[in-house]
């Protein structure tokens, strides 16, 4: 079905004449005959716009989204409210449709946004240099590994088990290419085991990777943990949740060389996981090793202030095999969304939002801990997410909550076999006290019902039940 094209039969005729061929098919004769497909594509016929809409809407209908279920799932992506002004600005053709700003004279809009974004992320992380964004969080962390190898000429990474499992796995994937070794350090009481970390870091270590709040929601003492890295000349790389940086001490003040993370909480919708963006900030020293685009301020021939892509000599299109990274197309529009969201929140709103999260999270943690069959997985300080253990199969409890219209949290079992009974619960400003209370009731009822199911049916043991008994006592 013809769509989005303009060539009429007359146009085609005139164009073919100008080219000097009889048909468009002739132009394809440069493809050797055996390699031409010679049959139609086995794809459905084209559809009208209304039909495509109906088809896609019918698919969307079959997803339980956060408009339909009250969402307590986090694990790196959060159901924050994205203010309408973000969409209004990011949907403007002028931001939506251009390519990367290779021609700065006609790209000042996008370039200035990058510069503003870099300023904002630099403020958030407390590090002087920011790039204009990477794909997303975990691959940003893996890219930091590449930088660390370049900076230290070492090929050994020490990673806390508190780092997001997706980040750890991505780092491992990339490290095959980097020919680097990855060593993991465990958790104690919800936070990185400081002694084990100190032990693991050595003179061959290129970087130490921490995350705060870590995957279990616990705020790490980055400063203390980072000492081991400093001691051995390894880079300290800290993944963080940008939404907590209004209240938590910024990585830059904790000795981090690099701070990075998943940007989704800032101005980006959930989108089943993407597109969002990764942010990446570093100390001045690393500026020429940074991955990704960086906008810089300069002047035009008449002395007007302007912005350009700076330090392009780091990049693949100039430096090719010696580039600091291979990234080209990144996530500029998503970074714009973040910048608008941050401006909208503003200096004080951003902090207040952080405070709100901490307070509601504290309430939720207390409220849930009081539920029979729920206990805290750790008691370390948390900001906006916390982990509990359930005295009933997590999967079954989640199913029961889902029936009540609640997505109760993220089950920890797949990523942490040691916490097969663990559930991670996330709070955003959209989760009201009433919804938290409802979650507590739903968990209470679900756990009771699951226990009943086990008791009632005597020998019946749910699949997930076949695991180690829960530690501490419960009501």
């Amino acid at each position: 079905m013809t769509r989005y094209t303009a060539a009429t039969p007359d146009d085609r005729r005139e164009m073919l004449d100008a080219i000097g061929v009889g048909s468009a098919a002739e132009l394809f004769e440069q493809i050797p005959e055996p390699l031409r497909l010679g049959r139609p594509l086995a794809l459905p016929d084209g559809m009208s716009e209304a039909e495509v809409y109906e088809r896609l809407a019918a698919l969307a209908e079959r997803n339980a989204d956060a408009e339909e279920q009250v969402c307590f799932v986090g694990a790196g992506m959060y159901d924050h409210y994205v203010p309408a002004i973000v969409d209004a600005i990011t949907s403007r053709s002028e931001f939506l449709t251009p390519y990367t700003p290779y021609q700065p004279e006609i790209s000042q809009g996008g370039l200035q946004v990058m510069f503003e974004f870099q300023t904002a992320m630099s403020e958030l992380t407390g590090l002087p240099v920011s790039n204009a964004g990477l794909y997303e969080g975990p691959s940003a962390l893996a890219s930091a590994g590449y930088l660390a190898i370049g900076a230290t000429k070492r090929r050994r990474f020490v990673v806390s088990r508190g780092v997001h499992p997706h980040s750890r796995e991505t780092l491992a994937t990339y490290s095959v290419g980097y020919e680097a070794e990855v060593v993991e350090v465990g958790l104690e009481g919800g936070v990185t085991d400081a002694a084990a970390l100190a032990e693991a870091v050595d003179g061959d270590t290129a970087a130490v990777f921490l995350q705060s709040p870590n995957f279990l929601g616990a705020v790490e003492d980055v400063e203390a943990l980072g000492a081991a890295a400093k001691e051995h000349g390894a880079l300290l790389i800290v993944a963080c949740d940008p939404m907590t940086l209004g209240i938590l001490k910024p990585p830059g003040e904790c000795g981090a060389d690099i701070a990075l993370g998943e940007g989704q909480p800032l101005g980006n919708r959930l989108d089943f996981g993407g597109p969002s963006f990764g942010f990446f900030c570093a100390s001045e020293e690393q500026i020429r090793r940074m991955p990704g685009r960086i906008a810089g301020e300069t002047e035009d021939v008449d002395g007007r202030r302007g912005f350009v892509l700076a330090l392009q000599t780091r990049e693949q299109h100039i430096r090719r095999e010696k580039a600091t990274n291979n990234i080209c197309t990144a996530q500029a529009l998503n970074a714009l969304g973040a910048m608008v969201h941050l401006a909208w929140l503003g200096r004080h709103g951003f902090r207040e939002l952080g405070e709100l999260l901490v307070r509601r999270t504290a309430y939720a943690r207390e409220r849930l801990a009081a539920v029979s069959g729920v206990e805290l997985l750790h008691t370390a300080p948390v900001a906006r997410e916390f982990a509990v253990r359930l005295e009933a199969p997590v999967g079954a409890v989640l199913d029961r909550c889902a029936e009540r219209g609640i997505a109760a949290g993220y089950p920890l079992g797949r990523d942490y076999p040691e916490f097969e009974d663990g559930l991670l619960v996330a709070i955003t400003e959209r989760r009201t006290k009433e919804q938290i209370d409802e979650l507590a009731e739903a968990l209470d009822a679900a756990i009771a019902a699951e226990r009943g199911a086990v008791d009632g049916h005597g020998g019946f043991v749910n699949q997930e039940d076949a695991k180690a008994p829960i530690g501490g006592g419960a009501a």
Partner: protein
Amino acid sequence: MALTQTPMQAEKAQTIFEKSKAGRRAAALPDAGVPEKPLAELIPEKLLRAEPPRLPEISEPEIIRHYNRLSRRNFDLDTGFYPLGSCTMKHNPRLNERVAALPGHARLHPAQDPRRAQGALELMWLLQESLSEICGLPHVSLQPSAGSHGELAGLLLTRAYHADRGEERTKVLAPDTSHGTNPASVTMSGYEVVKVATNERGGVEMDDLRAKLAENADEVACLMLTNPNTLGVFDENIAEIASLIHEAGGPLYYDGANLNAVMGHSRPGDMGFDIVHVNLHKSFSQPHGGGGPGAGPIAVSDRIEPYLPRPQVVRREGSNGHGPSFDLDFERPRSIGRLRGFQGNFGVFVRSYAYILSLGGDGLVEASETAVLNANYLKARLAEGRAGKHLPIAFDRHCMHEFVLSGKPMKRDLGLATLDLAKRLLDYGFHPPTVYFPLLVDEALMVEPTETEAKETLDAFADAVEQILAEAEDNPDLAKNAPYTTPVRRLDEVKATRKPVVRQQLQ
């Protein structure tokens, strides 16, 4: 009154931080609705931040004005012709934005239980199937976030493939016309690039290929190729190339940035490629967003499949009268692992799948045909008159969806560099072609009109080039000092790199 500058030029750039004023704000937040304990009771003081980050303090009306005004300092695809070679700046249908914004897509948490995200998984599966058919390869992973990420994935797959066979290989062949991401990805995946020369037809120089293969016997992990390549021509020797590489034990990697030339006409899988990445933000109409987001799914052959990233979207046949269901398969023991968080840039998948549904099979075929027609027509127009004289085509044959001109004679005869021509085009209201790439061609101009442009637009562009060259015959300084009408004029890029100022200083 004489104009000394345009209204936009007269407006001094001010960042949003400079518009900040203490006490202003846009957002109102809900009440916590829970006990307002002091923060330090909840989190130890030493972990807390002393001062909030110095974000702007600004009202909502000021924000929208700031960014709206800023937006007008961009040139964009909906403003005018954007023949940026290798970038496939085709129309971005707003239908795709509409369906991506449906709450069932936009507010779906990526960790939602697959049983409660069946629509999303089915969509991903359908897109996989579509790309598989288009690429002529049976398996697809949607995970990579853009083309370069797809390249990295492909090279790591290649490593895994060899490793699984107990081999360690160290070299990756790539033509000298390859895109910068190709060698960069090669290095990131622990390989070394070996450049292969280009022949007089713009294709791979077969003798050089054979020589490089011989030189690096048993060391060649794979060959990365773009076909049609960055010169816009189809390499007729591809079948032979493929068998040479396969004989040498390496898979063939296809950089799909130029897929828009051949959709439904020729398939990488049929050409002998084992791994293909597809830039959904090029051929499949995802808007470029000023530098992303995109997505770079990969399609692979059977022998590469075991190593595909984790998780993989799978379709499970139904039983007991239930229809099929969709799931995320994590149990992939030979997988290279994850390349990123969650399942990929799903919002991009929605847009691209909507695009595929809109056009259908025939529509895709016609899109490529029209892209090739438009390119060849514009090439013919630029072979006339002054352009034909000063800007010859680098490889004189029919092109596919794009073509490369050389500004070398223009520079020699008129003193205009390709950059000058590009800058002068800005005054004529056009985005210039890609310049100085591929490196092989002196003073290169790489022109890709795409299928969604009307003939009138192509004519207007050819006329503008002609006129700029005519002007230059009289007065080359006109172009050398261009542009004149853009929001800012030529910028000092050297300063920005020598003494980089990459953030606003705040007091």
